[in-house]
């Protein structure tokens, strides 16, 4: 079995998976909070302009922010209630960002979304539904999905890859989605295949989720008809297996060129969570205003997989799960390898929040860093074949501007180098500094 697993050849690390905290917990809906703060700047692209004002009544699923120009995606109200104001909120990355604050109407009934047959719809109508529902890549940077599904006409896309690798430790949202709704994901895949006008879809899943692999295989078996060819590709457990470029190489053997995009090698990648959201958007015409979030770590009383309304504050989630525990040292939005540490629990959940980790002192490593001992482990760990050690030494020596020779712009900050470094050097931090100062 093991040698049949697909993987990428160069680099990668094996951090402790820590998925046992939540992998067997079914997704439970978080009770709707008293108020939500919906950030207007949630993802890749231009921030939205608010289309509501104070005291407006909104229903869940109504648009509250629209993109007036450039790349972006519509943002919707996640609860039914009254707009209390348009102001600033704490933001996971940008510190402060504009937001719409909505006070929930406790008496409101949940909005129903009826499934309808999408099969007769044209490509434009399908893309329109995806755009109107505000779908973005919810597994990563939040790239607007309708744009990603409209590759330039000269790109010869032949394969859709669904990313169910979920290689980040702790996170189990994609795992639970594949286990609890595999048919919806396969249906979503068919929608994407229809939009792209192709037949082949491969669903990449790391071998540490055998139950999800089985569930998806069963769902694929039922669905592989009408010309669609949807199948599961079990992957070796190795971080960053779910990185777009590594995943494409693992499954197809193709290499995305420098500064290239997946469609340059005939592939479009979508996260399985995004695919489920595409199903909701097209079949139910339901906008993306809630998502599954893994809340985990040894600093929270009850780790869980929660279905959370966008805009719910981390503090509301923590108190629902019994509060934080003594020893809590760090709160991370996202996974432990690439997520963002936050300084406050007042941060609202966005469309791209896949996890909220409450990490204790034992789980993080706060030891001070030392000089590079040139062990070369970061060179072995880097999946992009870069020289993190040299970049770090150059940055420390004040020569960040000279680091493009080491490929600093090819780095996608997976964190393998800093994870493996025995001197505990903050190599990703050095690389970010280098990216700011180096010339392309």
């Amino acid at each position, binding site marked *: 079995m093991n040698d049949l697993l697909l993987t990428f050849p160069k680099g990668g690390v094996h951090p402790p998976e820590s998925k046992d905290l939540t992998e067997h917990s079914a997704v439970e809906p978080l009770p709707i909070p008293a108020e939500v703060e919906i950030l207007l700047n949630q993802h890749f692209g231009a921030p939205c302009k608010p289309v509501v004002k104070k005291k407006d009544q909104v229903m869940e699923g109504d648009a509250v922010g629209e993109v007036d120009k450039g790349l972006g995606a519509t943002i919707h109200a996640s609860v039914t209630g009254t707009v209390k104001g348009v102001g600033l909120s704490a933001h996971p990355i940008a510190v402060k960002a504009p937001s719409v604050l909505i006070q929930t109407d406790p008496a409101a009934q949940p909005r129903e979304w009826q499934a309808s047959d999408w099969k007769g719809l044209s490509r434009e109508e399908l893309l329109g539904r995806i755009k109107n529902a505000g779908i973005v890549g919810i597994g990563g940077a939040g790239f607007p999905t309708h744009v990603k599904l409209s590759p330039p006409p000269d790109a010869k896309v032949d394969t859709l890859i669904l990313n169910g690798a979920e290689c980040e430790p702790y996170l189990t949202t994609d795992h639970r989605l594949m286990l609890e709704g595999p048919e919806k994901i396969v249906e979503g895949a068919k929608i994407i295949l229809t939009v792209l006008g192709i037949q082949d879809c491969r669903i990449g899943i790391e071998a540490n989720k055998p139950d999800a692999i089985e569930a998806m295989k069963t769902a694929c078996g039922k669905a592989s008809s009408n010309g669609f060819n949807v199948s599961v590709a079990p992957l070796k457990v190795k971080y960053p297996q779910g990185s777009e470029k590594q995943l494409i190489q693992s499954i197809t053997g193709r290499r995305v060129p420098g*500064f290239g995009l997946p469609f340059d090698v005939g592939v479009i990648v979508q996260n399985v969570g995004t695919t489920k959201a595409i199903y909701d958007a097209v079949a139910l015409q339901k906008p993306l205003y809630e998502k599954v979030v893994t809340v985990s770590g040894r600093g929270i009383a009850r780790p869980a997989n929660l279905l959370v309304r966008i805009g719910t504050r981390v503090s509301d989630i923590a108190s629902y799960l019994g509060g934080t525990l003594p020893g809590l040292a760090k709160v991370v939005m996202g996974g432990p390898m690439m997520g963002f540490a936050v300084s406050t629990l007042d941060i609202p959940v966005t469309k791209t929040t896949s996890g909220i980790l409450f990490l204790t002192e034992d789980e993080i490593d706060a030891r001070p860093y030392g000089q590079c001992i040139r062990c070369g482990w970061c060179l072995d760990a880097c999946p992009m074949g870069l020289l993190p050690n040299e970049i770090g030494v150059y940055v420390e020596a004040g020569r960040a501007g000279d680091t493009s020779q080491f490929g600093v*712009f*090819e780095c996608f900050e997976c964190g393998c180098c800093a994870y493996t470094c025995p001197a505990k050097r903050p190599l990703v931090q050095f690389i970010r500094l280098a990216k700011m100062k180096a010339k392309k």
Partner: protein
Amino acid sequence: MLTVSVSPHIKSGESVEKIMWTVVACLLPPLILSVFIFGIQTLIITAISVASCVAAEAVSQKLLHRPITIKDGSAVITGLLMAYVIPPGVPCWIPILGAVMAIYVAKHLLGGIGFNIFNPALIGRAFLMATFPVAMTSAWLPPIRDAAVFKYMGSGIDAVSTATPLYVLKHYGVGALMEKFGTMSVIYGDFFVGWRPGCIGETSALLLLLGGLFLIYKRYITWHIPVSVIVSVAFFTWVFGGERLFTGNPLLAILSGGVFLGAFFMATDYVTSPSQAPAKLIFGAGIGALTVLIRLKGGYPEGVCYAILLMNPLVPALEGWFRPKRFAPQKGA
């Protein structure tokens, strides 16, 4: 208070301390055995060497206003390695001078750990060889056979001093070697376990091999450098080491001198060795070739120390020539 820092938020359990102290542990069995081979003074010389290196590290870092990192074990390794390449009959103050050279000059004046070009322990030894050539090339002791570990304490070391197998081989030939150390099968057995004249920690190929294999098992080092050094010494000795071409004795060559100590513990020093597999193979092969060149044609009977020191400055070039293959290089890069 929540900690905020750049990702990743988890790190592997490895650390510089863990690596260094594991290497120290792997170096201890040859030291213990050396007490039974050469007597208790090997322990005293090694203790002085380690203490001087640690003290030199602390003083150097204090003088240069750097954080004091003696707990990381790297100065302990330098102290052990320097003692291991010193003859067992030298006066006790010798390693103190070597420590100052190794730690202050060769390590900290060049930027501290990670920036030194040459292996500090070997610089220490080379300095001692240049400064005290008589003591460093004549204080060899015949192995003790009766566990009388206090035999060489006090006076009389000069009276018992002997010659190393490589010295005998170089100056008197194989016949004299067998006359002194027994038949070839006895020589192979004794030399493999460690019962031969030589430096304090270099004689036991067996224990050094076990320690080195443990480091490979722990993935702290890879097989490339040790294997290429040993194979290269054996190969070039076989080709050039006999009276005619292809008649040298490769097994005797690798069991003599400091080949195993150098191959597993000195040539693999992270700072002064390359990191990529092809570069490691070239580096190791170069060390082996230079060792044999010095042994056969040079002024000294043994050449591992200088061979490594000569290859050390090539490391930056090797690192530049053999870089990892970029996944997606940009145009012009």
